[in-house]
């Protein structure tokens, strides 16, 4: 561990090797289970249980067995609606709040921010039962609202947007005000377009959280017609005989939207969290 000054080219090359070996092992462990999942989606139950690592020809049969008793289309539809509505509303509500806390900050608003941050510590489990009764009283069981409303405003997103608003040049706001732009217009025309990476990062996080949400939808979406993909695959193992090929296909299908969103927005994702304005 001694500080190495000006290593020779040979030692430099040698020093790099363990790093690549390490990365390769990590990558293998990381991708291995996913590869198994993809391959198994094309295999029969027997092949899955025999841990076959080769693609099979059972994809179509798995699809048929999956869709025979499960309404994948409906579950996919509800998952997408829930996740998209949550994401859109969360971005609007939290970014406007984060911006508001920073740009119009006052001691009282700072205090409110502090109180809202406390909510970060509230475990969902602690609010689940009363929240359930709240929605039940409001007659909102089985509704998209019941899934979406608790997920819209999160302290983390507000914090993220407040931080990015902090790096947003104040002069731009002043200049826009002098030009006679309304406050809301400044937000939508100046802030939003500049903060695309932050929005991308927030979108990825919110979409994934919403998509993966399991416990709350399981509690609040009582009618099987409203079930989401995670609920569908969780129930899949509750039957008397499990078709592993079909299960793995369902697991793969459930993962696809988040994987796609993730890859599309991957670059902006890291940039968004750095909070750097380009």
């Amino acid at each position: 561990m001694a500080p190495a000054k000006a290593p020779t080219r040979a030692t430099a090359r040698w020093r790099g090797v363990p790093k690549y070996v390490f990365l390769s092992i990590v990558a293998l462990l990381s991708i291995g289970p996913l590869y198994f999942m993809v391959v198994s989606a094309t295999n029969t139950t027997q092949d899955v249980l025999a841990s076959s690592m080769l693609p099979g020809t059972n994809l179509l049969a798995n699809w048929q067995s999956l869709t025979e008793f499960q309404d994948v289309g409906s579950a996919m539809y509800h998952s997408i609606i829930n996740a998209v509505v949550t994401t859109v509303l969360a971005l609007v509500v939290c970014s406007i709040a984060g911006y508001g806390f920073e740009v119009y900050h006052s001691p009282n608003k700072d205090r409110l921010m502090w109180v809202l941050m406390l909510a970060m510590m509230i475990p969902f489990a602690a609010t689940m039962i009363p929240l359930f009764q709240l929605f039940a009283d409001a007659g909102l069981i089985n509704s998209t609202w019941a899934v979406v409303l608790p997920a819209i405003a999160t302290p983390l997103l507000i914090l993220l947007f407040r931080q990015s608003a902090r790096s947003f040049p104040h002069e731009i706001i002043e200049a826009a005000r002098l030009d006679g732009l309304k406050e809301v217009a400044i937000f939508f025309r100046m802030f939003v377009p500049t903060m695309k990476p932050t929005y991308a990062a927030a979108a990825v996080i919110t979409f994934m959280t919403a998509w993966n949400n399991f416990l709350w939808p399981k509690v609040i979406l009582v009618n099987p017609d409203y079930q989401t993909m995670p609920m569908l695959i969780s129930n899949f193992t509750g039957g008397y005989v499990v078709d592993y090929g079909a299960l793995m296909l369902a697991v793969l299908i459930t993962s696809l939207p988040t994987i796609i969103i993730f890859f599309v927005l991957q670059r902006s994702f890291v940039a968004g969290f750095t909070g750097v304005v380009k």
Partner: protein
Amino acid sequence: MTPVALEKRPSRDKRKGGAKRELSPAARRRSLTGWAFLIPAAALIGLMMFWPMFQALLLSFQTGRGSALDWADPLTFNYSRMLEDDIFRLTLTNTLLYLVIQVPIMLISALVLANILNNPKLRWKGFWRTAIFVPAAISLVSYSLVFRTIFATDGLVNDALLGIGLIDGPINWLGETDTARLVIILGLLWRWTGFNVIFYLAALQNIDPTTLEAAKMDGAGPIRTFFSVTIPQMKPMILLTVIMSTNGTIQMFDESYNLTRGGPANTTMTMSHYLFDVSFQNNPNFGYGAALSYVILIIVAVLAAIQMKVGDKRD
């Protein structure tokens, strides 16, 4: 600028003074606009988090099964009942065990990986990044079921270990307490390490390159530089990830429910899973469930407070 500042904002902000003293009509309108910007989020958090939390407190003072709830006598009955609850103690131990073992390993691995990935000279960077990030995109239920399958007695992991001769007979991973807990921890590491790498990469990009140059000039090696230059600058982000991971682990449900079903003999069951069983699966005891949830809340709050304190101190 890092995206984390849980602490009070810097007081040297020059915008601060003017707004408060004399409010011009424009400034007042602006202030109102500001409030209007905050209200939707604040109202939602109030209604969806603080209000239910208050309700849970009331509920935790009630007893009864099903819908026949009544005030407990004494009011703290559910809390004192908890002291005699062996399953609760077990789930608390399990949850803390996951926390103590998994979170440090995960965050240290994530720091190391982020540091390697941040090296501009690294080859095939896109591939490594993708490979490390991709588990973070998999749904919790999905990966739990995949892990359940590959750790079955006749599953992939046993086949692989038998194949390379590391073990003589199949290991009953999910059937033994220690190995079942290990599988949960491995699952959590697999799913969440990459997620934290993303945050650390973001923080690394914020590090002032001149400080690294300066360290190099001073003759510090990469490891020394990492500990004395990089880590201190990443502290706010590390604090955030510690709080997020702690919070997530204490509240963990999906893995316990889908991967091990809490077994064998409840030895992998988490507190949230027990809470779910008490409230919805067994003879429903919502008052006791609410009391359990308050204990979870207090644990999370205390841990977060400690973490922030520790995080502050090393400034």
